[in-house]
């Protein structure tokens, strides 16, 4: 019974009640069952697999970037093949003379030291520093947007479920469906061309960039205010793009929770509707949504490639787009790795949060004694 995520574990836990055999198995797999261990191993595996696949993609695909680079360098006749090969190899931090497996090991070794190659375009600049300069901006805007959309969306979804089939429910549900249907990059594009260019309601030229030119970084109110000003549009886009999903998801989860026996039992005990709504219905309904937080973040980061382009916001998406245009493969690879790492960490955090919220998963669980 491989239950690898909380969602899966819930399905498994519901289907397979405790039997003596399962209890024994549980005891043996005692440590493996602990959610923290599972989550860590899963995270590690994800990163491991991603790096491996990236390595082989780069090395082995037809028309792979290393060969392209070599061709490019030797094209003008300014370099010999050997020199070009050496340079390409150093840019990717790969030794081309050694067997593939050893190359792989040194690649992984380099990774462990934080060395993910050097940019093709800006010669000699370590990819890691390039990525670290832009990643926080994206994480900030995505994170803030998601934070708002989750809290507001969950509340609205709960409200819609409690007022089912009324006008407000129809508006919320339809609204949620509509905004979830619009691709997130289009929300950004529409803001630019409709609100910015056509109607001139938003000063998009002023809001370009992550910060205003000449602004000194620091914990000053001026700087923070400036950052927020520039991040307002990306944050709004991420907010709108994910809001619908939370509204609809929470509405459906709440409807299911309201049908549970313990809700009726709580009413029979004279508990107030307010208490039931928050601690009995709400807390149970929100659980499946927590498992989706990281996935939603991943999708949002994906859209940032275009979103940041439209707002000229110097985050990881804009940098990736530049790298793609310039065929700067080390940077592309580096961004893929670091973004995956970020999402994996976010996933881990979400899994841990879930195991804290749902006591059935957080502990070793199971009925004991009569």
């Amino acid at each position, binding site marked *: 019974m491989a239950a690898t995520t909380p969602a899966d574990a819930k399905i498994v836990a519901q289907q397979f009640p405790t039997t003596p055999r399962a209890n024994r198995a549980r005891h043996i797999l005692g440590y493996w069952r602990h959610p923290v261990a599972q989550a860590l191993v899963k995270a590690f595996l994800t990163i491991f697999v991603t790096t491996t696949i990236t390595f082989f993609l780069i090395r082995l695909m037809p028309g792979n970037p290393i060969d392209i680079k070599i061709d490019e360098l030797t094209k003008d006749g300014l370099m010999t093949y050997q020199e070009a090969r050496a340079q390409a190899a150093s840019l990717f931090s790969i030794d081309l003379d050694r067997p593939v497996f050893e190359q792989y090991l040194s690649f992984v070794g380099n990774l462990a030291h934080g060395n993910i190659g050097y940019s093709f375009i800006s010669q000699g600049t370590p990819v890691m520093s390039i990525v670290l300069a832009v990643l926080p901006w994206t994480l900030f805007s995505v994170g803030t947007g998601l934070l708002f959309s989750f809290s507001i969306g969950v509340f609205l979804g709960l409200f819609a479920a409690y007022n089912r089939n009324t006008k407000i429910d129809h508006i919320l549900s339809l609204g949620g469906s509509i905004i979830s249907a619009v691709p997130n990059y289009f929300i950004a594009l529409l803001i630019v061309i409709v609100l910015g260019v056509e109607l001139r309601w938003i000063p998009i030229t002023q809001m370009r960039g992550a910060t205003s030119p000449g602004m000194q970084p620091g914990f000053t109110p001026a700087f923070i205010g400036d950052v927020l000003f520039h991040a307002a549009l990306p944050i709004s886009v991420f907010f709108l793009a994910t809001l619908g999903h939370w509204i609809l998801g929470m509405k459906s989860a709440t409807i299911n929770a309201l049908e*549970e*026996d*313990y809700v*009726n*039992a*709580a*009413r*029979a*005990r*004279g*508990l*107030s509707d307010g*208490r039931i709504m928050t*601690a*009995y219905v709400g*807390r*149970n309904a929100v*659980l499946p949504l927590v498992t989706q937080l990281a996935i939603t973040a991943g999708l949002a980061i994906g859209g940032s490639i275009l979103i940041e382009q439209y707002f000229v916001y110097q985050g990881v998406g804009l940098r990736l787009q530049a790298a793609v245009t310039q065929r700067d493969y080390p940077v592309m690879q580096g961004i893929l790795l670091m973004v995956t790492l970020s999402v994996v960490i976010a996933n881990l955090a979400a899994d841990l949060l879930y195991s804290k*919220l*749902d*006591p*059935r998963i957080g*502990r070793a*669980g*199971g*009925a*004991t*004694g*009569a």
Partner: protein
Amino acid sequence: MTPILSVRDLSIDYRTRRGPVHAVRDVSFDIAKGETVAIIGESGSGKTTLAVSFIRLSPRSAKITKGQILYTNDKETVDIRTLPDDELRQYRWSECAMVFQAALNSFNPVINIWEQFADTARAHGLKDSKKIHARAQELLDLVHLDPARVLTAYPHELSGGMKQRVLIALSLMLEPQLIILDEPTTALDILTQRSIIDLLGTLRKKLGFSMIFISHDLSIAAELADRMITMYAGTVVERASVTDLFYRPRHPYSVGLLRAVPRVSGAMGAVASIPGSPPDLIRLPPGCTYVPRCPVAIPACSEREPDLLPVDMPDHDARCIRWKTVAEQVGNAEVAVAEKIATA
């Protein structure tokens, strides 16, 4: 003495697409202080619908079309039907506590047992955590559970039997006058059933509350009840004391139920289930609803549904115009009817 709960001509309908389902029809009975009444019937007889209406927790599609539910404690009598919402909330659990079927899912899975005790107490105005805690410990002791272990536990960590005990303990928290238990032992194994029944018996003697319990299981009635009501197709078909019903049933359905219980000591081959199935509660026949399955039915039975008629024993009614025939077949002996049929 006024009965603590007096149900008068209660009728409840469910709204469905095909039409109203008459789930409860003209039910009347009383329960006195300290008395235990068992409501027995098969699935779909309306017993749960009836019970749930006593705390006004019926689903939205259910509607009380007529009747009264009069609840009395020492001070006053109220009609539950017209009780204002905030008084209703107070009434629930402090006056009348209902423990549902399948205690397995009666607890909020994400908060621990102590929180659920505290929630209940706080909902009724008790704020002092220390006092609540002391009371919880006292109650859990009463039901033979270890408070230290149970209070910090989460519902999924307890077995079915334990949860049922916790629910019983919880139900006693505000010292209600009336406790309603819906199928208290159905989902449990036989040994646990035994312990729960014993527990209920002891608690009742000790604390003196009235009990209504609903079951399809006659044996629990035999053990704990003072009076019994059998329900069929939404209405009461017989009302009697437990001994009367077991030894001197007067309605063919009650007889059928008794016959259907296998006996540990009885002869083989004497058990018989009642052939046929209950009627459609949307389109009810004009006469007695039991006619299709009744061994003593005559044409007059199908003409109109009989009222509850008093029979030859005191405080004993049966909704059957042929009760005398049933009495002849069953007799008045001290031997339990089931035993008699088995040896016949």
